[in-house]
């Protein structure tokens, strides 16, 4: 109720007129039970009211509850009424009241319990009057009173906010704990200077590793980019094909003859021709004078390049096959072997017994020549039976089925294997063997059925050599020799004559045809049926065969004869001195192998009917053997000189033609030249397959190269080797390559163009025993070198390409080399002569002195020997019969 409110507002003495104050105070009033101290509730009777003029609701209403009373009035009242006055309770206060006016406030609502209250203090009075309003001039005093009084804080009434505060506040639940630590270092450690050093342990780093439990996704990345201009310059080059019109024409355009004439007559043409002719002629002449386009550098280089660029010879030979025959080759050594001239892959090997030198010479045992084929390396394909050990044999060049061999006992033996030629052909690698049940079974009886061919003919012992035949050769089919030793033409172009040599100092010529002399005296021997198969090709020769021509080799200078071991003929190629038609016919005959006439039908033509060939070189290179000549033991009073003379193995160049000597009979001519190049034996004499006049001779310690026609000696001699050289051969494909087999089973390859002091390559231990024969063989695809040794094994090696392919200009280089060597030889000889002429005076004295000195020395030596032997106790009873050898090599 608004009036109530304003009343209560005015009645409260606390506020100063503020709104807040009003509101605050109104509830304050309601709650306060008491009344302020400065007011006193009074009850005024109506009399009093009338007296004072404050009748309720008349003078004092709710709107004007204030009535100022004079103090004097009040005091009067007291006097008047004394105890009955309404103001009796406040009498004292009124008396004490400083002011004159007393405020009486009508308390209509009985807020303080009574209907009127008296304001006791002037301040309160002021206050209340001020609160009541300003228009009244009395009220400002009241307000002033009230304003001076500072409001006093009311007691706090809990309204629940303290709980919230309690919740939010932080209080210590317990007392703070106090820990005291005593952490300290020893005193002395404080303050020393710090020493820094590297840690002795390995630096343990703390490598960062990604923690799998933890990953930060990089949400922000530093990134920069820059714009680059898109300009890029490049260039290419195209081939720039020029477009050209291409047209084809099917027939060439030509001028007709009239047009040509027309043009030729035209003036422009004539002018042109004039102009051009001179320059053309000049150019043509230039050409003929000189070749301006020669590359001189290149032309120079062809000679020297070869030596540097020659490829290296590989270190090992590739073994292709080894041939051994269990049955027949065991315990035997191979003396020689030959490649079959026509059949590829067939080799004939001569097996001989290993004998020492002292065994009897004429013991005849079963020996064989064994045929091997590439297809079967451990079984023989064919066996040739021989009357004795064969040291040399050859295939006939015109008919490979005829084989001639020389025996240990000096016999010459012939075989004819025509019956088995098909069989042999079948054994060639790559060909199927013809099914021939008669001769062999395919499976396990092969060895037993190796066909054995017995010799067709053997020369009777009385006609043969007295010593083992060491070399046999067929005369080439281009000429033959009469029984006077003259070379004549060979009508049939068949090799029919054989030359043999033996250390019995003779060379014999044999003819396989029916000889004229013995035609009438042919005997048909009854015991011709033999257990083995052989052909009757040479029936005519049985028992009657004899050489038609013999050559002996008297020595130059001394008596005695040379003992030839190997010889070498010049292969004579028939120069066509017939008419063209005849030669063709002959060539056809030669080529056409079916037309070989049967040997038994051949007759030795009469010597007179044949035309002699003048240009046949009848000279032979012969390698000889040692001849031991003992001089008798002479006991001369003062000198005991006893020595063996060893004739060194010499190379003889001799002619086989005999000359008519004084007595009118044919006499062997003395050799033209004789050279002492090799010591001991000569085991190979072979012509080079590339040069007709170059001959290789191999002795025991060295080898030499000879040129036919050079009379001074060998043009090249190799240095002596430590091992015995046992055999050697030229290479068939490279003119400068030689192969030499040694006693220890190694093979040396010499390249004449590279170096002459040592071999280019030594293949050591090719075989475990002495090598007895080496022969190369070439075909278009393969090159082989077959090596035979003393153990009966035949090894076949494939020759590396470097040994087969000749280097550039090898032949011409080799020729030049030979010429150089020849010149050197001549030079040397010349100088030797010169030197021999000069100091002749000096030599005269020396030969007289020497024997004396030697004699004395020898005496001393004898004495020394006696002493030593006495000392050793070996001195035998007869010292005189000792013969001392003083080898003089």
């Amino acid at each position, binding site marked *: 109720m608004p009036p109530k409110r304003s009343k209560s507002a005015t009645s409260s003495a606390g506020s100063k007129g503020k709104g807040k104050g009003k509101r605050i105070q109104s509830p304050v009033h309601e709650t306060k039970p008491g009344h302020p101290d400065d007011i006193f509730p009074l009850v005024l009777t109506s009399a009093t009211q009338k007296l004072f003029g404050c009748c309720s609701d008349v003078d004092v209403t709710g709107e004007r509850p204030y009535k100022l009373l004079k103090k004097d009035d009040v005091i009067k009242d007291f006097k008047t009424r004394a105890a009955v006055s309404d103001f009796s309770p406040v009498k004292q206060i009124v008396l004490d009241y400083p002011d004159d006016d007393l405020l009486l406030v009508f308390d209509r609502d009985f807020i303080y319990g009574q209907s009127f209250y008296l304001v006791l203090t002037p301040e309160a009075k002021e206050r209340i009057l001020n609160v009541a309003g300003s228009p009244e001039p009395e009220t400002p005093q009241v307000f002033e009173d009230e304003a001076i009084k500072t409001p006093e804080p009311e007691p706090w009434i809990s309204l629940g906010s303290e709980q919230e505060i309690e919740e939010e506040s932080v209080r210590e639940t317990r007392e703070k704990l106090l820990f005291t630590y005593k952490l300290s270092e020893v005193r002395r450690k404080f303050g020393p200077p710090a020493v820094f050093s590297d840690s002795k342990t390995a630096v343990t780093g703390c490598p960062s590793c990604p923690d799998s439990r933890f990953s930060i996704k990089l949400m922000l990345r530093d990134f920069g980019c820059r714009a680059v201009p898109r300009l890029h310059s490049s260039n290419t080059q195209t081939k720039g094909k020029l477009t050209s019109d291409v047209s084809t024409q099917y027939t060439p355009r030509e001028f007709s003859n009239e047009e040509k004439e027309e043009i030729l007559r035209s003036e422009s043409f004539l002018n*042109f021709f004039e102009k*051009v*002719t001179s*320059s*053309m002629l000049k150019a*043509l002449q230039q050409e003929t004078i000189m*070749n301006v386009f020669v590359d001189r550098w290149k032309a120079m280089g062809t000679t020297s390049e070869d030596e540097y660029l020659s490829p290296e010879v590989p270190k090992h030979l590739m073994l292709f096959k080894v041939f051994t025959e269990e049955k027949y080759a065991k315990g035997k050594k191979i003396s020689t072997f030959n490649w079959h001239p026509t059949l590829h892959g067939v080799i004939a090997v001569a097996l001989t017994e290993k004998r020492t030198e002292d065994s009897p010479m004429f013991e005849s045992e079963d020996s064989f020549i064994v045929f091997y084929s590439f297809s079967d390396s451990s079984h023989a394909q064919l066996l040739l039976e021989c009357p004795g050990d064969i040291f040399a044999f050859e295939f006939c060049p015109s008919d490979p089925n005829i084989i001639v061999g020389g025996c240990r006992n000096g016999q010459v033996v012939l075989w004819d294997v025509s019956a088995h030629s098909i069989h042999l052909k079948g054994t060639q690698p790559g060909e199927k063997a013809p099914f021939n049940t008669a001769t062999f079974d395919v499976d396990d009886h092969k060895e037993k059925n190796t066909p054995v061919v017995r010799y067709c003919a053997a020369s009777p012992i009385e006609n043969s050599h007295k010593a083992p035949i060491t070399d046999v050769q067929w005369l080439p089919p281009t000429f033959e020799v009469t029984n006077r030793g003259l070379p004549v033409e060979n009508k049939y172009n068949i090799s029919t004559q054989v030359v043999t040599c033996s250390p019995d100092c003779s060379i014999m010529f044999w003819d396989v045809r029916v000889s004229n002399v013995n035609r009438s005296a042919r005997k048909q021997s009854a015991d011709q049926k033999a257990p083995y198969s052989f052909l009757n090709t040479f029936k005519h020769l049985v028992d009657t065969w004899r050489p038609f021509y013999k050559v002996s080799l008297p020595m130059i200078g001394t008596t005695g004869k040379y003992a030839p071991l190997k010889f070498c003929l010049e292969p004579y190629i028939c120069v066509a001195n017939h008419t063209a038609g005849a030669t063709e016919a002959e060539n056809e005959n030669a080529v056409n192998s079916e037309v070989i006439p049967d040997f038994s039908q051949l007759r030795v033509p009469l010597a007179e009917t044949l035309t002699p060939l003048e240009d046949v070189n009848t000279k032979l290179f012969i390698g000889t053997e040692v001849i031991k000549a003992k001089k008798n033991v002479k006991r001369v009073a003062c000198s005991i000189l006893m020595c063996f003379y060893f004739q060194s193995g010499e190379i003889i160049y001799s002619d086989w033609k005999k000359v008519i000597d004084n007595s009118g009979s044919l006499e062997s001519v003395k050799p033209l030249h004789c050279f002492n190049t090799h010591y001991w034996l000569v085991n190979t004499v072979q012509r080079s397959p590339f040069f007709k006049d170059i001959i290789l001779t191999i002795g025991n310690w060295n080898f030499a190269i000879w040129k036919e026609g050079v009379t001074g000696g060998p043009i090249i001699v190799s240095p002596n080797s430590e091992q015995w050289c046992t055999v050697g051969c030229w290479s068939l494909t490279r003119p400068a390559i030689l192969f030499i087999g040694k006693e220890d089973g190694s093979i040396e390859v010499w390249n004449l163009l590279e170096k002459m002091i040592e071999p280019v390559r030594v293949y050591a231990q090719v075989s475990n025993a002495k090598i007895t024969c080496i022969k190369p063989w070439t075909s278009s695809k393969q090159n082989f070198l077959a090596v035979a040794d003393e153990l009966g094994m035949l090894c076949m090696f494939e020759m590396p390409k470097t040994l087969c392919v000749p280097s550039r200009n090898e032949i011409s280089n080799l020729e030049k080399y030979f010429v150089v060597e020849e010149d050197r030889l001549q030079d040397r000889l010349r100088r030797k002569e010169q030197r021999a002429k000069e100091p002749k005076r000096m030599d005269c004295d020396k030969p007289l002195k020497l024997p004396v000195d030697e004699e004395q020395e020898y005496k001393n030596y004898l004495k020394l020997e006696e002493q030593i032997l006495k000392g050793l106790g070996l001195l035998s009873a007869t010292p005189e019969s000792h013969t001392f050898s003083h080898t003089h090599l």
Partner: protein
Amino acid sequence: MAEVEETLKRIQSQNGVQGIIIINSEGIPIKTTLDNASTVQYAGLIHQLVMKARSTVRDIDPQNDLTFLRIRSKKNEIMIAPDKDYFLIVIQNPSD
């Protein structure tokens, strides 16, 4: 005409000359001492070559022109004398 013949004989008599061909600027043979097939072949091939050679020379220097062309091969030498309208070709075996 007779002069031409005579001169041709002179050229022919030089050492090693195998053949002579005269062709016009289009490559058609006019006179030859070889057989027809060879002539035609030579003419066609050499004509192209001369054109090429000439254009090469002139490209390098337009003031220049081809005066003589010699082709030396292993077996022989071909000499060509070109002109505006005609070519003279001589085949010779070098003497070495």
